[in-house]
């Protein structure tokens, strides 16, 4: 049974802002799933709807088989990090946790355990207003861990963490998944998430544009040919004339469409010398940019894994017949 199931979930704020638009997904137990997308894609609103903090305009979402508000002892089953600024600045870190532990019926000893776990024990008796952004983030994570929950929902947990903190977070999340727990983590830092998650949900303009195992998504994506030439401008013009997609890198061109052999042949035909020519499998970030870049014209959702691969990055694909036109974003 899926741990989190959302069906046709939508949220409209006022008349003009459609923050989440008909999103359907299921999160399997024991996985780390990344919710990815640029700022304003609808990630936070989706997470808040899962946690019953935001009421969906349409659709349903269930966590552990029921709505969040219907769970018994929810803080002991689902831990959430939503906002590292959600603490009274005049309260100490320890007391901030004690307030939530007391309300949730969690033993006081657990507060010290989670403070140790997030390496905040030394600062526990300082007021939160004296904490750095990274410390507040660790305190928010400690709050999520108070109930030793089976599901973790983390909104941008790496915000404010230094590289050491990010590595600690990666190791920590992998450890939770290894114990069979489920983690749903949102981020707009794709390179960071790529190293952590099993599956991804990619949101763009409030719509789910791709979902599936990260390895399948990147493997299905259109490869990129990287080419370096002292006469890059001429080569770029020739490639564009032949219908290739070209992005300029700082000392090279990233070419989508033709194979490396076709690029080499074209360069030879134009008399342009090449200093480098190789095929790269795109990173998650490349994939995301491809998908988000085509999103405005192509509304199809890419689903990989058990389902057949969809037209992930095919910018020539037309709009899905079932996809309604977007009214606004």
């Amino acid at each position, binding site marked *: 049974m899926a741990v989190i199931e959302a069906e046709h979930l939508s949220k409209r704020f006022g008349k003009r802002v459609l923050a989440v638009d008909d999103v359907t997904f299921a999160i399997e137990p024991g996985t780390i799933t990344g919710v990815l997308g640029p700022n304003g894609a609808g990630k936070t609103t989706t997470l808040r709807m899962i946690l019953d*903090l935001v009421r969906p305009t349409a659709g349903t979402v269930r966590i552990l088989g029921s709505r969040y508000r219907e769970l018994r002892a929810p803080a002991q089953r689902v831990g959430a990090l939503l906002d590292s600024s959600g603490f009274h600045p005049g309260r100490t870190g320890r*007391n*901030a946790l004690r307030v939530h532990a007391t*309300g949730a019926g969690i033993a006081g000893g657990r507060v010290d355990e989670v403070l140790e776990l997030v390496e905040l024990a030394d600062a526990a008796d300082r007021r939160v207003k004296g904490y750095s952004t990274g410390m507040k983030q660790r305190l928010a994570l400690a709050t999520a861990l108070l109930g030793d929950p089976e599901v973790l929902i983390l909104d941008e947990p790496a915000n404010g963490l230094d590289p050491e903190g990010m590595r600690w977070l990666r190791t920590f999340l992998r450890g939770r998944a290894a114990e069979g727990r489920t983690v749903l983590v949102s981020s707009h830092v794709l390179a960071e998430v790529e190293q952590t998650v099993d599956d991804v949900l990619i949101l763009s303009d409030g719509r789910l544009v791709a979902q599936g195992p990260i390895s399948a998504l990147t493997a299905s994506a259109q490869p990129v040919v990287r080419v370096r030439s002292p006469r890059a401008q001429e080569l770029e013009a020739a490639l564009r004339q032949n219908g290739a997609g070209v992005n300029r890198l700082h000392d090279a061109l990233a070419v989508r469409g033709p194979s490396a052999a076709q690029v080499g042949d074209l360069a030879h035909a134009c008399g342009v010398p090449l200093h480098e020519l190789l095929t790269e499998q795109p990173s998650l970030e490349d994939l995301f940019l491809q998908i988000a870049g085509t999103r405005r014209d192509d509304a199809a959702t890419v689903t990989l894994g058990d389902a057949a691969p969809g037209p992930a990055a095919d910018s020539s694909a037309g709009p899905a017949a079932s996809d309604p036109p977007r009214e606004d974003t």
Partner: protein
Amino acid sequence: MIALARSEFLKLRSTRTALVLFLVVLLLVIVPLALLLAFVPKEWLEQDGITSFLSTASTLVPLALLVFGILGMTGEYRHGTITYSYLVTPRRWQVMVMKLAVYAAVGMVMMLLAVGLVYATIGIGGLVRGVTIDASGGATAGDYARQIAVAGLITAFGVALGALVRLQAVTVAATLIWALIAEPLVAALKPAVGNWLPFQVFNQVTVSSVSQPGADSLATVSGLDRPQAFLVSLAYIAVVAVAAVFISLRRDVT
């Protein structure tokens, strides 16, 4: 619900807001009373000077409690702690009802404390000055009970107003302007209307109990006797509290 109540009390104990409130009560009650006892002539002390003072103090302390209630609720929105409150207790009506109850209890304790401080200060001051002063100002136990109950209701009223408006500075400023300027003006110009407005009604339960001691059956200037004023106070609190709970249930926490 017990865990929730303990959590609310812990919220109060773990910040300085309640301590500041206690100091404000001290400031409003003890300091002027001590100055009065120290410097005014003995004859005046033995007449009705203390009663007049008590009347003023019994207006100011509930106002401090009202602001305390507003700060308690709006602080949850201002600092974003409402998110975690609702995550721990997603049945939001429970959060709201418990906050109203806890703040009402704290308001009553504060008023009880204020009354006790008045008695203690007058007792000590009387001994020092060598005069006998009626610290009650003629008020009966029933007067005090109503005064303490209304203090609790006013604190809860502040919580409910905070839940409705959410913006801390706006709520505090608007409420104080309404209570200290708008209502008294309306009451002065149109007593038949003004004396039914909320803070005028609260005053009729508190101030009048001291300024018209032991006169439960007497009608006040508005035509409301004290039991009636108390019932109208309850009605005001109930309406605003129910509205606050209802809106909290429907509001998105973004």
